[in-house]
């Protein structure tokens, strides 16, 4: 029997084709049912927030921060290097380092600013995530984390210019005062941050911090809709964003 090189290559390529074609046919799993958005879900092109610092007292830790951290099972870890936070307060010079001039007005200097994930238009955290665990939702612009996919590499934390992300250096469960059973906790080794209360929006509620603030500091709405409360507020009052020169396009606006 003579097997020429030509014949061998032909047979080998046919065999390779057969072998490679088979597994992909059986692998795909398709769910037969249909999926649809919640009937009461709030929808937007890009969710955004206005923070009116003229109204904010900047020290009522019990309201917005507590409301958020309670419903999302955010642990309170006293050790600062292990701290996990979704919302946090920082003085002006930390929030707006490029604007912290020599003589700041008293109003600005003495206040803590309400900070959270900016849900950027072009989020650097999403660009660096090697597993696509963090992503920007096409539909409403929320920057989310799929904790199932997060491998804890913390590239996103390095990329985020706003310090909005926290890493679970240890099991957060023992540090949660009262666990909300309707929302998962996190696991040691994943990064977490504010999700603009995606789980409330999908059932027709606004974010917990906005709901909790009694001073009316926080305004939440669709940035792409010129008639939304946020856009109306922004068209009336001068406002700033954090580190706009980086080009990330933050969706949180501060009225100072």
């Amino acid at each position: 029997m003579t097997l020429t090189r030509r014949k061998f290559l032909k047979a080998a390529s046919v065999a390779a084709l057969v072998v490679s074609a088979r597994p992909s046919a059986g692998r795909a799993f398709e769910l037969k049912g249909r999926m649809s958005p919640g009937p009461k879900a709030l929808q937007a092109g890009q969710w955004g927030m206005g923070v009116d610092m003229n109204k904010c007292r900047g020290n009522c830790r019990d309201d917005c921060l507590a409301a958020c951290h309670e419903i999302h099972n955010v642990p309170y870890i006293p050790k600062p290097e292990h701290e996990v936070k979704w919302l946090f307060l920082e003085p002006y010079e930390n929030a707006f380092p490029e604007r912290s001039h020599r003589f700041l007005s008293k109003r600005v200097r003495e206040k803590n600013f309400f900070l959270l994930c900016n849900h950027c238009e072009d989020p650097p955290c999403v660009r660096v995530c090697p597993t696509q665990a963090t992503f920007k939702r096409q539909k409403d612009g929320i920057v989310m984390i799929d904790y199932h996919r997060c491998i804890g590499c913390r590239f996103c934390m390095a990329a985020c210019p706003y310090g909005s992300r926290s890493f679970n250096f240890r099991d957060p469960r023992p540090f949660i005062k009262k666990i909300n059973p309707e929302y998962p906790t996190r696991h040691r080794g994943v990064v977490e941050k504010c999700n603009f209360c995606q789980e409330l929006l999908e059932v027709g509620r606004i974010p917990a911090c906005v709901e909790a603030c009694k001073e009316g500091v926080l305004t939440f709405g669709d940035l792409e809709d010129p008639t939304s409360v946020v856009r109306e507020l922004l068209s009336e009052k001068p406002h700033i964003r954090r580190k706009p020169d980086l080009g990330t396009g933050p969706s949180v606006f501060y009225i100072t």
Partner: protein
Amino acid sequence: MFNKGWVIGGIIVFVAAAAFPFYWYQIGQGKPFPKLELPAKEKRCVESVEFMRANHMRLLDAWRIAVVRDDLLIYTSTKGDKFEMNLHKTCIGCHTSTERFCNRCHDYNDVVPPCWDCHVAPSEIGKGEQS
């Protein structure tokens, strides 16, 4: 053939050892399949029992992707029933004990899914930190 006795004898011993779990189970010595506690009130699951038994993990995976990435919430099953795609409300709403439902079968099959590392199992509700 050299060493006929050893070779054939060896093959018989190997097959007998490799097939041990199958005939051991057939003669009734194996660990019996565990009895799962089914919800008392609700008789319909999201999909048929056979489908759920084989594919519940894939269904949960597809649900997660739909909710987290595509902002979807309602699942309409092949029978036309509507369910919220929510592990806590929908699944745990009926199967109120993970120990007597999930774990029994997972233990039997020796699989350890990490669901309850993050999601709050019904038995964990109310527990918290003291200090």
